[in-house]
């Protein structure tokens, strides 16, 4: 995949929060149109009751509207003012709904395109007698077996139990290159809706209709099963609590005003419409209106990176992660060891060694073997020979000999680990040279893997196989460290090799010779210490660890068991993406915190606008608090209400896109955000309300 490119810390979206290939423009016209329609539907009080803050605004808007009608019916004055307040209160609710609908709309559009691919294909079901029977895919149940031939759409999720085929999974992953699916091993899982391109496979269905991966994916991107995350619930409680406190403050203002008016013997107790306006301005409508949009948009951002999060909780947990477990192979290193050097011993030339090494590897299809052939070709111009012309016998790697090689023109060429080759040579009456074992040790110490090459009973030299650390990983791990996240490399290598690679890659710790059980235990140990752990995995034996981890990202190429166990699936199967997922989680939480702080800080200015306006007649001296110099009491109240509504719509892009995230230490991040959203939140409304007040005056609206 494409996003391993390292970025510099100066880059604002540093940890690779680049747009995935599914990115859409923020305000896609069809989505906007749909969101507008949805926002009106969402005015239904039963829907809105889930959001206490906006529900209070809606009740206030309804009350204001009723009083407006009463004023119209009785022919009272101030209709213009009441009409505008009522309209802007409705707009406040509408804007909040719009934000949520926009966030949902992006997912819905995606779900629609997924649904299109879910045509009701016919499946070739295999009966017990082994006959093929054509049934609709929806009729298939768990444990049914069906046959998939070229151009067949695989009818449901399942395991390949026979055969091998190339499969087009672009429906799910967006990646057009076909992948191989075969029975047994870790590449046996197939997903319903994908298409067989060549060969045939027999698939045992593992899920009932409606429960397939595609179904779940549609439900997830659509937000149908969206549940509030723990932090979102807590935040909701807080803003609901604040709403109640402000409700008390505003309700009790009525008796205080009554007392004051009675004693000042002038003016009037502020009417319901004015009190409602004050209440709506004070309650945290900004965060209340945008909270769910932030959560949905966070899920959506994960989706844009082609990662499917099974719950918002998982995304939230990603931001909290303290420890990242990263598989060495494929995540930190380029996957396979590669030959980088031929080191001959005892009078052998490098070219001779390379020649023998290449010969022994010609039939070796492992990536290491191929890299030896390539290195010999690149460095010494040795071409692969047509060995069929010669008398050649390949010796395959076995667990007993732990060597592979070739018998070629009477020579026994072998390559293998130091110990194995030593045994082989000594059994054949040779001497294993000291220099060879020194060289091998030296290679091991640097994290490489030595492969000793011998011919008959003589050692020719050592091949240096090396793990290649991906570019930019060191910088990323340094950023992680700055954010307080510890990275642990998991590898099956011996501790010596592991330590060298760990040092080169700059991870904080490593787990060498790791078994799945070791991995699980490491996770448990970290969690017992209060840490949250994230990991990636693909094999069935990773499943317990994936389930135990707080954030478990399963690779889409992995087995069904792994996908079921994790709480995220990476459709690109790129384990490095775990780092991006963490960044998105953090960004989601920061956005929430920033808007909460901003919302509460905003209230200060609103008091200065509304309180003097309310008691302009009763207590004229209070006008000295009108530091913005707002025109009239009506324009002041109206300006505050309008500002309060407009700020929601103004912050929709921020809520959907997320606050810019920089990988900094918590202290630096907090200082920056407190300044921008805390202090900024206190100051911003003053000019904002002032400008609106001027406009209202110019337009003769108040």
């Amino acid at each position, binding site marked *: 995949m494409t996003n391993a490119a390292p970025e510099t810390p100066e880059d604002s979206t540093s940890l690779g929060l680049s747009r995935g290939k599914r990115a859409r423009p923020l305000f896609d016209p069809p989505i906007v149109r749909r969101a507008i329609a949805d926002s009106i539907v969402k005015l239904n009080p039963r829907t809105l009751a889930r959001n206490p803050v906006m529900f209070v605004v809606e009740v206030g808007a309804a009350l204001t509207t009723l009083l407006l009608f009463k004023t119209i019916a009785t022919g009272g004055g101030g209709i213009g003012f009441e009409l505008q307040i009522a309209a802007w209160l409705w707009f406040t609710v509408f804007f909040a709904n719009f934000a949520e609908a926009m966030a949902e709309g992006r997912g819905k559009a995606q779900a629609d395109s997924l649904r299109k691919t879910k045509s009701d294909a016919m499946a070739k079901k295999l009966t017990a007698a082994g006959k093929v029977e054509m049934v609709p895919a929806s009729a298939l149940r768990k444990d049914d077996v069906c046959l998939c031939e070229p151009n067949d759409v695989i009818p449901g999720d399942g395991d390949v139990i026979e055969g091998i085929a190339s499969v087009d999974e672009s429906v799910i992953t967006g990646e057009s290159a076909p992948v191989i699916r075969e029975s047994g091993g870790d590449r046996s899982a197939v997903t319903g809706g994908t298409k067989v391109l060549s060969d045939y496979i027999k698939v045992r269905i593992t899920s009932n209709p409606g429960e397939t991966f595609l179904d779940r994916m549609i439900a997830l991107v659509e937000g149908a099963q969206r549940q509030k995350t723990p932090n979102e619930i807590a935040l909701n409680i807080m803003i609901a*609590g604040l709403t109640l406190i402000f409700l*008390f403050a505003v309700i*009790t203002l009525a008796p*205080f005003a009554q007392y004051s008016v009675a004693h000042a013997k002038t003016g009037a107790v502020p009417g319901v419409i004015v009190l409602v306006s*004050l209440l709506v301005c004070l309650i945290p409508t900004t965060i209340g209106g945008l909270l769910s949009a932030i959560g949905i948009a966070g899920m959506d951002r994960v989706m844009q990176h082609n990662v499917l999060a099974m719950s918002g909780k998982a995304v939230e947990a990603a931001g909290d992660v303290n420890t990242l477990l990263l598989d060495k192979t494929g995540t930190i290193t380029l996957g396979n060891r590669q030959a980088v050097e031929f080191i001959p011993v005892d009078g052998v030339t490098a070219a001779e060694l390379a020649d023998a090494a290449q010969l022994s590897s010609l039939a070796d299809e492992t990536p290491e073997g191929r890299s030896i052939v390539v290195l010999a070709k690149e460095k010494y111009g040795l071409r692969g020979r047509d060995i069929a012309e010669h008398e050649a016998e390949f010796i395959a790697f076995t667990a007993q000999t732990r060597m592979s090689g070739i018998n070629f023109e009477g020579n026994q060429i072998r390559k293998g680990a130091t110990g194995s080759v030593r045994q082989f040579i000594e059994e054949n009456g040779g001497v294993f040279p000291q220099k060879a074992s020194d060289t091998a040790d030296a290679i091991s110490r640097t994290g490489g893997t030595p492969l000793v090459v011998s011919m008959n009973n003589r050692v020719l030299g050592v091949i240096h196989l090396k793990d290649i650390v991906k570019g930019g990983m060191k910088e990323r791990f340094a950023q992680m460290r700055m*954010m307080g996240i510890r990275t642990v490399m998991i590898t099956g290598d011996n501790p010596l090799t592991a330590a060298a690679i760990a040092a080169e890659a700059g991870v904080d710790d490593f787990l060498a010779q790791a078994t799945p059980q070791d991995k699980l235990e490491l996770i448990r140990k970290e969690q017992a210490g*209060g840490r949250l752990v994230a990991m990636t995995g693909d094999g069935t034996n990773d499943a317990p660890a994936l389930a135990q981890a707080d954030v478990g990202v399963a690779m889409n190429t992995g087995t069904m068991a792994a996908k079921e166990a994790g709480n995220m699936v990476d459709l690109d199967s790129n384990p490095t993406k775990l780092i991006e997922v963490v960044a998105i989680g953090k960004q989601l939480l920061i956005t929430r915190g920033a808007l909460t702080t901003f919302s509460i800080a905003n209230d200060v200015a609103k008091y200065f606008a509304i309180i003097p306006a309310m008691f302009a007649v009763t*207590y004229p001296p209070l006008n000295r608090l009108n530091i913005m110099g707002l025109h009239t009491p009506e324009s002041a109240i109206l300006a505050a209400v309008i500002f309060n509504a407009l700020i929601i719509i103004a912050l929709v892009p921020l809520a959907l896109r997320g606050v810019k995230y920089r990988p900094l230490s918590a202290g630096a991040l907090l200082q920056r955000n407190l300044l921008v959203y805390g202090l900024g939140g206190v100051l911003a409304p003053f000019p904002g309300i002032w400008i609106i007040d001027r406009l209202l005056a110019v337009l003769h609206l108040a």
Partner: protein
Amino acid sequence: MTSNGWLQIAIFFALVVACTKPLGIFIANVMEGRGTWLSPVLRPFENLIYKLCGVRRGDDGLPAEQTWTRYAASLLAFSAFSTLLLYAMQRLQILLPFNPRGFSANTVSPDLAFNTAVSFNTNTNWQNYVPETTLSYFVQMAGLTVHNFLSAAAGLGIAMALVRGFARHSVQTIGNFWADLTRATLYILLPLSFVIALVLCSQGVIQNLNAYTAVTTLEGVKQTIAQGPVASQEAIKMLGTNGGGFFNANSAHPFENPTAFTNLLEMFLIFLIPAALTYTFGKMVRDTRQGWALFAAMTILWFAGTLTAYHFEQQGTPALRKAGIEMTATSTAASAQSGGNMEGKETRFGIANTALFATVTTDASCGAINGWHDSFTPLGGLVPLFNIQLGEVVFGGVGAGLYGMLMFAILAVFIAGLMVGRTPEYLGKKIEKKEVKMAMIAMLVLAASILFFAGASSVAEFAKNSYWNTPGPAAANTNNPGAHGLSEILYAFTSATGNNGSAFGGLNGNTVWYNLTLGFAMLIGRFMMLLPLLAIAGSLAGKKQIPVSAGTFPTHGPLFVSLLVGVVVIVGALTYFPALSLGPIVEHLML
């Protein structure tokens, strides 16, 4: 403002700073049951008390640890029992000894006895009665003074329970209420009070059981001078941040607060334990920087309050200036004038020490006064009022200040903590639904109590022959009309809900209506704060402790201190600004 005034304020604060660490360590050792230099003498008494009271012991012979629900149940049972006892004591005082004036149930109506019993039990010490004409020496000593000890000890215990919630992890228990109560009283409050009472006596505070003295004044007027065991009550009144005066004039009375030295001592005593508790907190959570951070936030708020009150009192009012009164302080031999607003202030103490006293007594939930807050300038008087509305978290009451501030810390961390990209945590404990819910309940109920009771009292009207109050509006019980009257009502319910007990003055509260509403406000203010906090303590204790990393929200630096101060002020201001704008603020603007 004079350099002399500032010097005195500086001396006061230097004393507080000097004692914070040593006393903080001592309190931590006592409350964790470790040995102290007092243990050889007091340990046998401690064990005897446990034995006599039948306190359940664990396998180690120490009082058994309690879950938060058991802790809360013990607290409630104890409070209910002791409140009833105090009620009975007042009503039956004629049958009890040490009653030279022969006060009976006639001087203490049932509603007044209820108000007073609740008041002393909740560490409020709101006094709707005039002590010297209402209560016998016995009730003052065995009733009120005992409650002064126990209500402070209970508050200290609850603060410790909350701190244990932070300090412990993955356990269900938060300490033992009876052990906390016993240890706080026996090792901390009693020994200190004993010494302080003696010092006060040396300065002229009286301590006797004599009958009142009848004298003829220089003007030839006959006057009765009240007597009594004052010093023993005075010490704990200040040390336990109780504030209920032996006399109606409280610490303005020369028998309670005779000299400039006792005045300094009394102010110092208010802050002594609350300030030390910040250090105790830091020590118990194994990071003293955390305690100093709270101390710093409290200091900023204290200083801002003192500065404001002192400034406006020294500035006086336009009316005084118009009357030709010198508003500038002078200190020449020819003219040594205090200047400023001296109305309601003792000339012994002057403006600086009265402004400081008013600030300190309301920063903490003490409520003792050495001058009349009612006579302060509007903004000078706003300081004590707003201090209480902030929740008395500026050092605060014994225990109450710490747990109140910790609640704000939880809230501050929750609001702003997300901005570091992690779900909020404080001292390694995740702040989640339960903590937020409980903190919001506490804030909400307290705000409701202040606003609704004050709102109702500002508009309630009573019919002729009403049982509840004198006929007419409840607001007529105030001395002043208009904005100042509203301040008086608001102050009363703020003081009661905040468990402060200081009176703005100027409100006749001894009617059934006010006795009951203020009584309920005190109960709400105490228990609707304590119960949610104990729930938080229980929840926190059960959580894992997340290790600190570079990604952790730092809660010890200047950044956190300013955030905490900001949250305290903004939350307080947002809640009460509308009400305050019609009281002290408009009054100031109308000067």
